């Protein structure tokens, strides 16, 4: 079983602030972390490998320091790591990123299952996982909360608003996973030190060229015109009244005043 996990290094959003003057994110000094959903993806892969054997390869596209994200995945227990990194890839949107990652995955000897986090917490598009599946021409199931493998077939549970769907598929297959699927393990000190010594393969754009004609910004149809912070949520209102009946009356009056009912 060859499992590929796609991860992204993202800024730690708990440490990001917004500059309302310039309408931009203040990213300086914000540490990079492995996108939290991607850690769930790595954990899912490790658990499957523990059951079925095989190999887990993590792939990321990013600047050279994205290696740190791969090292963390290696420390968690992944076997191999590939960094797709090239200046030509800068400015890639979800589509260009999907193409590049799909090309990198195609370059691997074999892949049976690809696991991605459901979305990255910086861009929040949730498009790269599905994009990779489309580029590779393989089936995909998103927002998966359970994965069972049976030889050449997979049986997964897809989260829905009401509960979950059970989906069966052949392989290769791509799934995206959310937080519900597992609790990612913490790497031990020893594994972290070992991961530091691990050689990480770097793939340049030229090696992907055959599959990706227009990498980076040139191949990215999305243009970001403006980023703005959502308005702060207005304070809630507590209706104080002598009795429940009076409170309900007051509430109904307010709702009808505002034409909600």
């Amino acid at each position: 079983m060859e499992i590929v996990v796609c991860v992204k290094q993202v800024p730690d959003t708990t440490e990001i602030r917004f500059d309302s003057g310039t309408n931009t994110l203040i990213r300086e000094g914000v540490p990079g972390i492995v996108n939290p959903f991607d850690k769930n993806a790595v954990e899912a892969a490790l658990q499957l490998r523990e059951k079925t054997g095989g190999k887990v390869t993590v792939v990321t596209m990013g600047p050279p320091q994205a290696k740190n994200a791969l090292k963390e995945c290696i420390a968690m227990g992944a076997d191999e790591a590939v960094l797709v990194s090239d200046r030509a890839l800068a400015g890639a949107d979800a589509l260009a990123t999907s193409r590049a990652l799909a090309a990198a995955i195609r370059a691997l000897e074999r892949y049976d299952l690809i696991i991605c986090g459901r979305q990255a917490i910086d861009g929040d598009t949730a498009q790269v996982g599905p994009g990779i599946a489309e580029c590779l021409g393989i089936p995909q199931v998103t927002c998966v909360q359970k994965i069972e493998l049976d030889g050449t077939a997979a049986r997964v549970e897809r989260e829905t608003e009401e509960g979950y769907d059970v989906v069966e598929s052949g392989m290769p297959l791509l799934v995206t996973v959310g937080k519900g699927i597992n609790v990612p393990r913490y790497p031990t000190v020893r594994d972290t030190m070992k991961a530091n010594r691990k050689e990480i393969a770097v793939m340049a754009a030229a090696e992907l060229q055959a599959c990706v004609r227009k990498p980076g910004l040139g191949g990215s149809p999305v243009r970001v015109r403006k980023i703005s912070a959502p308005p702060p949520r207005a304070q809630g209102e507590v209706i104080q009244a002598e009795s429940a009946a009076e409170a309900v009356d007051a509430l109904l009056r307010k709702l009808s005043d505002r034409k909600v009912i």
Partner: protein
Amino acid sequence: MNFTLTPEQEDIRKLVRDFAAAKIAPSAAERDEKELFPRELFAEMGSMGFLGLPYPEEYGGAGMDFVAYAIAVEEISKACASTGIGVSVHTSLCSWPIYKYGSEEQKKKFLTPLAEGSKLGAFGLTEPNAGTDVGGAAASAVKDGDTYVLNGTKVFNTNGGEAEIEVIFALTDKAAGPFKGMSAFIVEKGTPGFSFGKKEVKMGIRSSVQRELIFENCRVPAANLLGKEGQGFKIAMSTLDGGRIGVAAQAVGIAQAALDYAVRYAKERVQFGKPIASQQAVSFMLADMATQVEAARLLTLRAAFHKSHDLPYSKEAAMAKMFASDIAMRVTTDAVQIFGGYGYSREYPVERLMRDVKITQIYEGTNQAQRMVIAGNILR
């Protein structure tokens, strides 16, 4: 001069910080309230590799240095000071003398499970009549064939009752007195004649455990003598020199936690129409607190660096422990002040930090004793 951590030391900080935030911090207040010792957390930290950081891999350790260890104690203590001292006592007061003075056989048998974290360690020196003045020690060990027979009482034993391995000091030569006649022994929990007395009820670090240890004709194998007969005092003092780096790191962690809470609160709390942080009286307090924490951290890491590089560290560790614990007392008190009435409330975390930190001025040598060590060093 280089003030940056190595990539490995940075990794340790991140690893321990993430673990502590997720696994240790959430239960800290409840464990304090209920005086619960988190044995399961120690098991987990053991399997993570946190309980043998500075010892070689061949003895189950992580093969890191004492800087990495100090960083780990700081990060753990930031989440929970009780857990921090448990790790510090285990690593520097119990494992270290075995690593430093133990025979190959003793290291294999005792250091390995300690460093792997499958067993917990403790250190018993203090007696009812021997605190600062180790000269008052009365516990005795009499050789009888291939055993030593231990009698006496140890008090305030951190991890006592939980620890499977204790390093215990007792007089093998009463006539020679404690300085020349004391010896160190490795004593396993469960040895007949070794029992536990009362559990301390304390002001702070309430989820750390201290018990009285009672030895009544307790037969310890002669093979468990650590170092040579009569070396006990030297072993105890050199062990405490290193232990103080752990206490200093614990104090820095508690102070950093207090500072972080105070900064956040000062930005959020509005009085007179603006955040209290915009009052110079408050912001200057925060500036002083931040400066003191930074200075204490540097002293602590320098002492740890000295220890890692086989440079003298007795004076450095005493300075770090004394300074860090004194400023931490001040910083936590100021954090309570910045929180105002809410700071005094048990619903907010800073009162616990203030209670927890007091002990760092007392144990492993009171700060008066640290001044004796420092003065002794510079007046030699």
